[in-house]
């Protein structure tokens, strides 16, 4: 089946030399040598071209051959088939996350069509530009341009419906509202090897993340602050995986104070908030006492500590509203705990990062806690993308096991 993009109001961003037609049944063998080869060449290109942009270097690094092969080794790839055409609706603004969603899909051999948000930030634009350059400069790259297409369109139910009807799977990143809106458009069911392949939605709803930090003395501060910075600096702390709450495990106030000074010093040297963001940050800081003091939890004492661009709000307990209304921008909710069991996470918690904790305590908490987090990673790695994301195995979801 052919999906003619020229017949619907969409703008094609990648590849630049797109014919406008997508052959929806054109797929290739998952993790084929040729695919891995082309993707790793793209990775090398991105690492050298993107040098000055850390998020682009990270995408290139992720594509190194050894990494792709290690993912491959985790699956019985001989038994896997591509799913067909996969329609991705990328997250609004986490600059380069769209890339991973698309690459995993291509790696699985799928015909991949990605819809990006209409306001692309600088990093995303750069990344697209580099991929386009790579595709047009390299004559030996054949699979990638035939398997991946990036488009933009002003939100339009008819377009979404039309593309969905040609797709066998859909990856939706977004709020519950977005997911609900998009899920109502039916996907196609196709026959493959004479058996019906069930179509599926793979959804990544809004999530939040937390960090647990323990500092014993001043020597712990430097690395702990660098790790937190790595997790909150990108995307203005607005990625779902960036911690918004810090649980301080038995850490002296004086050390915390020095820690925050260090974090803010580093951050201020590298990043600035523009005036609109400063206003949003102020608004959220002023809203917090109201969001934290619902009728149920009265007299929740909160106190703001300002560390230049970083705003630390000390809280006694958290409310769902205070998390849901969080707009990133380097506001951190800080809670003191004496024991890991005091941590109460909300249902939509994604990542817990850990820093300075006793290894065995960590392990036993991880194994025994009923708390609903999706992953626990060392501090500094909150944003490292994995093909198993939010507990969803993307490779498994984007392939069919053939018998």
């Amino acid at each position: 089946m052919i999906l003619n993009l020229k017949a619907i109001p969409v703008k094609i961003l990648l590849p630049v030399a797109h014919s406008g037609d997508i052959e929806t049944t054109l797929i290739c063998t998952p993790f084929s040598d040729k695919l891995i080869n082309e993707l790793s060449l793209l990775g090398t290109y991105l690492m050298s071209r993107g040098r000055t942009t850390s998020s682009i270097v990270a995408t290139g690094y992720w594509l190194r051959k050894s990494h792709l092969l290690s993912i491959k080794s985790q699956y019985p790839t001989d038994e896997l088939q591509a799913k067909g055409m996969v329609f991705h609706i990328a997250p609004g603004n986490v600059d380069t996350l769209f890339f991973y969603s698309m690459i995993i899909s291509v790696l699985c051999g799928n015909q991949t069509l990605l819809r990006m948000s209409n306001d692309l930030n600088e990093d995303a634009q750069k990344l697209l530009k580099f991929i386009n350059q790579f595709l047009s400069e390299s004559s030996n790259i054949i699979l990638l341009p035939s398997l991946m297409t990036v488009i933009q369109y002003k939100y339009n139910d008819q377009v979404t419906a039309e593309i969905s009807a040609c797709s066998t799977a859909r990856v939706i990143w977004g709020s519950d509202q977005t997911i609900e809106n998009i899920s109502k458009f039916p996907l196609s069911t196709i026959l493959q090897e004479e058996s019906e392949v069930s179509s599926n939605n793979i959804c990544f709803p809004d999530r939040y993340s937390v960090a647990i930090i323990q500092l014993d003395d001043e020597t712990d501060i430097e690395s702990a602050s660098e790790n937190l910075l790595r997790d909150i600096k990108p995307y203005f702390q607005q990625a779902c995986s960036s911690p918004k709450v810090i649980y301080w495990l038995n850490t002296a106030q004086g050390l915390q104070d020095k820690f925050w000074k260090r974090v803010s010093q580093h951050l201020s040297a590298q990043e600035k908030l523009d005036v609109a963001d400063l206003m949003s940050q102020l608004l959220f800081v002023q809203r917090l006492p109201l969001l934290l003091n619902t009728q149920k939890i009265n007299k929740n004492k909160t106190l703001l500590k300002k560390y230049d661009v970083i705003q630390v709000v000390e809280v006694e307990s958290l409310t769902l509203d205070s998390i849901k209304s969080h707009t990133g921008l380097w506001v951190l909710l800080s809670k003191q705990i004496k024991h890991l069991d005091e941590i109460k996470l909300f249902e939509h918690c994604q990542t817990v990062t850990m820093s300075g904790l006793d290894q065995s305590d960590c392990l036993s908490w991880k194994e025994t806690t009923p708390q609903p987090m999706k992953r626990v990673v060392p501090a500094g790695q909150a944003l490292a993308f994995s093909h198993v994301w939010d507990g969803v195995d993307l490779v498994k979801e984007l392939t069919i096991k053939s018998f």
Partner: protein
Amino acid sequence: MNWQNLLTLPVYDLARNEKQSIFSPALLTLAKHHYQHSDDYRAIIDSVYPDFLQRGEVPALAVRLFKHHLLKSITEQEIFRITTSSGTTSQQVSQIVLDKENAMRQQKVLATIMKQWLGSKRLPMLIIDHPNVIKDKFSYSARGVGIQGMSLFGFDHTYALNEDMSINLDAVSQFFDKHKRKKILIFGFTFIIWQYFIQQLNELNIHFDVDEAVLLHSGGWKKLQDKAVSNKEFKSELNHVLSNTKIHNFYGMVEQTGTVYVECEAGYLHCPIWSDISIRKKSDLTEEKSGIEGIIQVNSLLPSSYPGHSLLTEDLGVLLGEDNCTCGRKGKYFQVNGRLAKAEVRGCSDTQS
């Protein structure tokens, strides 16, 4: 606070020291009043500005707070009216809780300020809008409130536009004929006057000979930011279609209804005695020097039923001076340059943009 005394103060006559000796202590008293009577305000102060009031400092609340929370310093039973702003950039609207006293004081102060510009007699009034804008209860929004508020200063209220925003030439011509050689009042919103009055008359090549008129306009350009013209061009084009018309822009907001900032003959907005502005730096929101563009903060003594006495707006402006405007009025004078570009939305959860 002794409002009886405050209301007798001259609107534009007190110089800095005199004004501050009255205004600053009154604002602090008001802040303490809200601290006592509004649980939410107290929670914000205790959490974000714990020692400010003791130090004699009054922090400004982000004006968008009123879009998220119903802040009030009165009991449910005392609520007389809740006014809302029109949501131009989002569906969320500001909700301002008024008791009878606060609502009446807003009217009184607005009237006192307007008298300075219109004289004390009611004037025949032409409204550059369509009559249904105030009839629809659901859109009882800033536009409707503004028109109703201003209507008090006029009589023979005539609407210049039809519901489809085309000009009602019959009504307008009749109005000007009927009130020939009388001073008249014209009121409307800036972008509506520009798009539906000036431009339509220009296209039709019609102009009216007016003997004496005062045109007040407000509201800026809203969604028509790309069509915005300078104040100078606005005035010259307007004078092209209406002769002998004095034009005054004014700046105000539903969150501080009453204390409006009217543009003088020299083209600058003036603070009345009951309110004051300061400009905040774009880099860190601390106080900005005069002459440099920043975020406008508005302080007003009027809000007693809701803690809206000190607000950080989302408007950009420049403080131009104090007590030394060529028009002779005392107090700070400034200009408004427009709205802050909407904060960029980032994060995982906005895929529909």
